């Protein structure tokens, strides 16, 4: 493999990992607090659609992004109400939301764009950070990315700091591990969990917008294709830690990038196997390659005073 090809591989790994990173960190925060959002997939799809429509209608991808972020909040709120206030089964309600969003976005897309549209949608710009971007060969191929990635990195670092050094981080952790103790201390478990689900929704909305107006500048029906579930798998793989989740996402991104890279190198591997690879890796990951899992104690269980 030449340096050029390696740089391209690295760059596309990071690009393909970006939506997983954004959604995965949000999901991790929510799971730390005890809420499993199967609806990450639906939240991403909502934003992928809403931001694409927004960017297309206004001609401004930034407004599109904003519309995507706003559109996801009701979906996240629905998930929060279902899993906290109504104490619904979090898996069932999440899958229900995913089905609803898949139907609704497909329906709305057909109505707005027609069945066979390939509408070109204005997308978010790329930036090349100084210094890093000036490295020969590697710089442009690896570091010239959509600015949403850099915003995402900043948000991830911020999340890690908040989780580690602040009382908010402690409260989130405790809400998942010892909700009864949190309740006794006078904090509201429900309020913490609501906040975390809405945060997961916010991160998923950035992830979804990245898919449509960040990466390929168009929307296709059901375009998330399981990325939300991969994000959930990356949280498990990453053992509910920021660093681990980031690494897992990068691994899944690299596995996806192989799809385009191996054929370019003339390696003859069935295309289907390559498409399957991230899911296969995720399955191996959740199936014990990482050892015994250390899920938050009350993950998936609604809190009852």
């Amino acid at each position, binding site marked *: 493999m030449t340096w050029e090809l390696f740089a391209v591989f690295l760059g596309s790994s990071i690009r393909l990992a970006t939506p997983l990173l954004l959604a995965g960190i949000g999901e991790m925060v929510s799971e730390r607090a005890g809420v499993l959002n199967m609806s990450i997939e639906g939240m991403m799809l909502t934003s992928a659609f809403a931001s694409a429509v927004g960017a297309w209608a206004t001609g401004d991808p930034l407004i599109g992004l904003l519309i995507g972020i706003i559109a996801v909040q009701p979906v996240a709120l629905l998930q929060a109400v279902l899993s906290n206030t109504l104490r619904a089964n979090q898996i069932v309600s999440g899958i229900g939301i995913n*089905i609803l969003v898949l139907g609704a976005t497909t329906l709305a897309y057909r109505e707005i764009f027609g069945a066979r549209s390939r509408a070109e949608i204005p997308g978010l710009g790329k930036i090349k950070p100084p210094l890093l971007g000036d490295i020969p060969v590697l710089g442009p191929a690896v570091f010239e990315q959509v600015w949403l990635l850099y915003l995402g990195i900043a948000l991830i670092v911020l999340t890690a700091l908040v989780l580690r050094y602040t009382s908010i981080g402690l409260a989130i952790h405790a809400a998942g591990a010892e909700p009864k103790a949190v309740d006794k201390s006078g904090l509201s478990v429900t309020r913490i969990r609501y906040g975390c689900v809405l945060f997961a929704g916010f991160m998923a909305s950035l992830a979804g917008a990245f898919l449509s107006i960040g990466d390929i500048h168009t929307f296709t029906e059901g375009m998330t294709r399981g990325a939300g579930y991969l994000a959930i798998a990356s949280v498990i793989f990453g053992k509910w830690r920021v660093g681990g989740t980031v690494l897992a996402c990068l691994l899944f991104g690299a596995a996806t990038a192989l799809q385009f890279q191996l054929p370019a190198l003339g390696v003859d591997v069935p295309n289907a196997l390559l498409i399957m690879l991230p899911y296969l890796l995720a399955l191996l990951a959740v199936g014990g390659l990482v050892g015994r899992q250390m899920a938050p104690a009350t993950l998936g269980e609604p809190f009852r005073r």
Partner: protein
Amino acid sequence: MTALDQTGKAAAPRFRLRPALLVPIAAVGFAALIGLGLIALIGVPVGDAIAAFIDGTVGSAYSIAASINRSIAFALVGFGFVLANRANLTNVGGEGQIAVGGIAATAVALDGHVSGLPLGLAFILPMLAGVVAGALWGAIAAIMKIKAGTNEVISTLLLSFIGVWLLYWCVQSPALLRKPMTSSATLPESLEIPEETKLPLLTGDYSFPLHIGLPIAIVIAVVIAVVLSKTILGLRLRAVGLNPVAANRAGISYARTVIFALAAAGGLGGLAGALMLLGEQYTLKDGFSSGYGFDGLVAGLLARGSVTGVIAAALLFGFMRSGGINMEMVAEVPTALVVVIQGLIVITLAGAALFIERWERK
């Protein structure tokens, strides 16, 4: 509330209007109303859409049979869901289990030796192959659960994606099941399965293509209902579902019960895939399982543990899908509308579960 109970009792003493029955009906009604609203919003005359919908469901002998065949696949996946759920396991991998079932059934049906077998073995063997493939697919999730504590929801979901891409691989690769490539225009699909391996039609008439999958599904429904309510096996599933530790103390193997439950659920999904292929489609194509797994899952969810409930929900969705497809063709209402309605039903029921429980306890 008492008035409700009284009317229920007065009308049919043994069939009291329980919330577990009322709420799903209300949820379906609510979702259907929103569906009608959306049709109006799209700008299609609601009357036209309803006419197309009815025409697609019961408009002809063919559409009735097609709807029932579809319902059979949903019901089998739903039965599997209910069975595994008795042990507190959530199998959401129906889609992949259908896919691998269809692949195995096609592979065996296309094997040169099978079509010549007597006594119906020509279609029984491919069918069994589908069951075995689905069961193995389900068992993977069970083994992961026992060995590594992996939540079966995430493992069956990931296995679903893998199964669907496996199907894609099988029909793309001439070394696997793709038909011989005679030109670059050869479609990525398998050869048509031999005549002898196709499921016999009940009437022998292609204008009413009900096949023997129907009696098979009815037998399975009865068996599962009996197993769940009257046998030790059913008790074991329930015991493990309620408290695995206590069940283990009582001598019920957690591992064996989990493997049985998920393999059985997977096997039923595999059977659904095999029936779809051997009874209707005859050639393996990419995406042939698309949506079926989730519809079956939703049927299982709606049923709240009851086999009769699965049948009712499966019939509802089977006819709804057929109606939806016809609505798209005739009245230009996208089938995605049916998906919206389903999503609403699931969300409503998930949200209402707490109320149903409280209400039932009163």
